């Protein structure tokens, strides 16, 4: 019977996939997403560490960063597998606390990554020091516009840890160190290319003397860049971005974007797995593991050290 063949094939497929899981340390990583290039780079780093240290990992994240409940389902399923340790980048850390408490009760070490968890359950957090990185972007902005004038900021959101840290890092550095620079507005575009483009155009329209704009993540930076292009202001407005991606890299090469901060996503993934293994061996971990950031522009983009952390 045809139907039976289909069912049989399906079962065989499951067996094949199921048998791949070996009997060693198993560390699931629950991320905020899996489709974006940034998360793929984190996954790549985690896989690299898993290979070197001889552990098994899985990497999962919801389809959109709004799906808090789906991420919690993933967390629940990961805990059901009795993992050795757990890597977790919370979309909403308050909503996840009951499950983190379960992990603690089962003695499963939890390693937070990317944006941290408002709880003392994670043994450490592997992330970029976004405040320091954004402050560095502010220094570069000041240098490029000559230390005076009007600038604007486009951020992905006002709720996530990364959004808050990058905004505050940038804004506070400008306010404390560069009194001649005014930030005319801080706008939120959800990290969406199109929305950030529209925002940027409106900002340029209402502030004709604008000298620079900072886009606080990949989507915001591309949006800012598109807005500046559509308003015919390339070369007149200094654009500084965050993260990488094919479009941003191309814009930096062509000079449309002055430069950008890049995190080290591969390093984040690597550190999560490495820290989990250390925790399992009983080693003590620092409360925060800074995975570092780099400034890159036209001059150093081909430097192997930079190329290693950029992703297309």
């Amino acid at each position, binding site marked *: 019977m045809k139907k039976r063949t289909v069912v049989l094939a399906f*079962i065989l497929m*499951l067996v094949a996939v*199921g048998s791949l899981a070996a009997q060693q340390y198993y560390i699931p990583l629950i991320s905020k997403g899996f489709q974006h290039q940034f998360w793929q780079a984190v996954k790549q780093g985690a896989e690299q560490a898993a290979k070197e240290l001889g552990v098994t990992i899985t990497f999962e994240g919801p389809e959109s960063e709004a799906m808090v*409940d789906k991420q919690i*389902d993933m967390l629940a*399923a990961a805990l*059901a597998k*009795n993992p050795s340790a757990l890597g977790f980048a919370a979309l909403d850390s*308050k909503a996840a606390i009951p499950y983190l408490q379960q992990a603690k009760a089962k003695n499963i070490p939890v390693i937070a990554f990317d944006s941290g968890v408002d709880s003392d359950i994670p043994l450490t957090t592997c992330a970029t020091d976004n405040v320091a990185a954004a402050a560095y972007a502010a220094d570069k902005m000041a240098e490029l516009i000559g230390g005076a004038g009007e600038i604007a900021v486009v951020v992905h959101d006002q709720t996530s840890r990364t959004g808050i840290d990058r905004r505050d890092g940038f804004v506070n550095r400008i306010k404390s160190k560069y009194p001649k620079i005014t930030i005319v507005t801080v706008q939120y575009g959800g990290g969406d290319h199109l929305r950030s483009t529209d925002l940027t155009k409106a900002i340029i329209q209402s502030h004709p003397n604008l000298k620079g704009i900072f886009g606080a993540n990949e989507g915001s930076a591309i949006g800012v860049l598109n807005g500046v292009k559509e308003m015919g202001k390339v070369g007149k407005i200094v654009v500084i971005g965050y993260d990488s991606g094919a479009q941003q890299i191309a814009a930096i090469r062509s000079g449309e974007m002055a430069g950008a901060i890049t995190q080290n996503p591969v390093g984040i993934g690597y550190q999560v797995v490495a820290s989990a293994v250390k925790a399992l061996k009983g080693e003590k971990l620092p409360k925060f593991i800074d995975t570092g950031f780099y400034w890159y522009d036209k001059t150093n983009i081909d430097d192997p050290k930079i190329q290693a952390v950029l992703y297309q």
Partner: protein
Amino acid sequence: MANQSNKAAAQSPVKTVSGTKGASARQKVLAFSSLVLLIIVFSILSPNFFQPYNLIAIMLSTAVNGVLAIGVTFVIITGGIDLSVGTMMTFTAVMAAQTVAVWNLPVIVGVFVALLVGTICGMTSGIMVAKFKIPPFIATLGMSMLTKGLSLIIANSKPIYFTNAPSFSQIAMGTMFPFLQDFQIPNAVIILFVLAILASFVLNNTIFGRYTFAIGSNEEAVRLSGIDTDRWKIAVYAVNGLICGVAGILIASRLNSAQPALGQGYELDAIAAAVIGGTSLSGGEGTILGTIIGAFIMSTLTNGLRILSVPQEWQIVMTGIIIIFAVYMDMLRKRR
């Protein structure tokens, strides 16, 4: 709606109901055996699957989608569709949070507000469909954007936390059976089952249910027999809205917060659950039991694949295959 023309105009509503029962019973049996098969396969493949903790996780992850699917089943049986159930759920959750966490009113008032807001939204969709003759696909797509936007505006694009009302999370996460030691079924699951029984009763044993089927099989015939079909259609969409309110309360309670950006995409999961359970997208047939089984198939599959550490990309592919397979079986059955 396509179903109006090709069915005999003389067919009486009552006859339609009894005529579809045998066929959808078969689909139910098929769906149920698929669910059992999935459970057996996953249990064999992983010792971690058939554990109390994991079974509860599956049930909990079914609760919200199951409730939404019950609501949308009513609408689909009338030959309509509702693409706004996900964001309508979010909107009711935000309104409940606004009431309880911002205005500091008692939890029960928040629950009432969520149900009321859901009913009003559903009724509005119903009026657009029945009175203004806007196709359900478009009317509810508009309602989906409208409720999404309103949720973001009211919550100021930020989650609202129930920090001042710890009892709110008990609605879904507490348990009525604390004596069941290792198998404490959360209230969300109990609410799903109670709602399913109620909805099943309404669909099979009341005039409302009878007209829901009749409109889906042959709206023109029902109208010609002197029944105000517009009124009943509006009522069906309103009931769907009310059920979205229940889902809104459950998800807000589970996350202990109203997440205003959430909800888009959830309507498709709900529709898929109904279809897997044998509800026909052309209207006139469907059962609540089938829908619940459909919702469980989806969550069991997702959970099982996760337990087996199947890469996420393949999980999506397999879910797609299952949905196509289920609908194909449904088509085969009808051709016979």
